[in-house]
């Protein structure tokens, strides 16, 4: 099993450009998440999904959109990139606690390092 994979690993954008980050998981997990990690800020939740076709806002959703058309994929879009979106983006997935004996361990991808100039 590949676990959680993210594409691309690195990307440099100019201000105003758009891009989509792809996350895929092969563990049949219901829940998927997008986080950003910035120095001194820890992980902050951007958007999450509790199932195919459903998404919800996290802590820092502004400037991002997401889609979960297939259970195994979770896409993060930046419509008009800004320098403030320079960060490392992590995708994660998990099972609902009720399906995992109360355990909501999250499985993380390797990250996408995005620089917006």
């Amino acid at each position, binding site marked *: 099993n590949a676990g959680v994979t993210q594409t691309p690993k690195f990307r440099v954008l100019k201000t105003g450009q758009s891009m989509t980050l792809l996350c895929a998981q092969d563990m049949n997990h219901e829940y998927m998440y997008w986080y950003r990690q910035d120095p001194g800020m820890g992980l902050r939740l951007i958007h999450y999904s509790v199932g195919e076709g459903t998404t919800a806002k996290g802590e820092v959703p502004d400037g991002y959109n997401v889609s979960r058309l297939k259970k195994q994929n979770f896409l993060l879009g930046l419509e008009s990139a800004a320098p403030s979106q320079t960060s490392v983006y992590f995708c994660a997935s998990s099972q609902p606690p009720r399906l995992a004996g*109360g355990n909501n361990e999250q499985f993380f991808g390797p990250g996408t390092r995005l620089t917006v100039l």
Partner: protein
Amino acid sequence: SQQGEEDPQALSIQEGENATMNCSYKTSINNLQWYRQNSGRGLVHLILIRSNEREKHSGRLRVTLDTSKKSSSLLITASRAADTASYFCATDAGSGGYQKVTFGIGTKLQVIP
């Protein structure tokens, strides 16, 4: 705002020594988890302790939870250079289907060979 706050933010020890990291949180929780992140990698789950548990062990890891003080500690015994990483606590709260998980800012551990 962050639910969990780790202390210290950075820790440097010699190989073979024990490393202790602390996590404090603000509201009632269901579970508390600890994760490790090696440089340039994603987070990896280490251990979960439930709110009704006080101590849990996994190999060289020992986690304690004090719900009255809203704090947890992670002890790594007999540290190795390979333990060099950042360590994060994560708390989850809420009931029903989705339980919000909040990560702290992490403790950066350096183990010197």
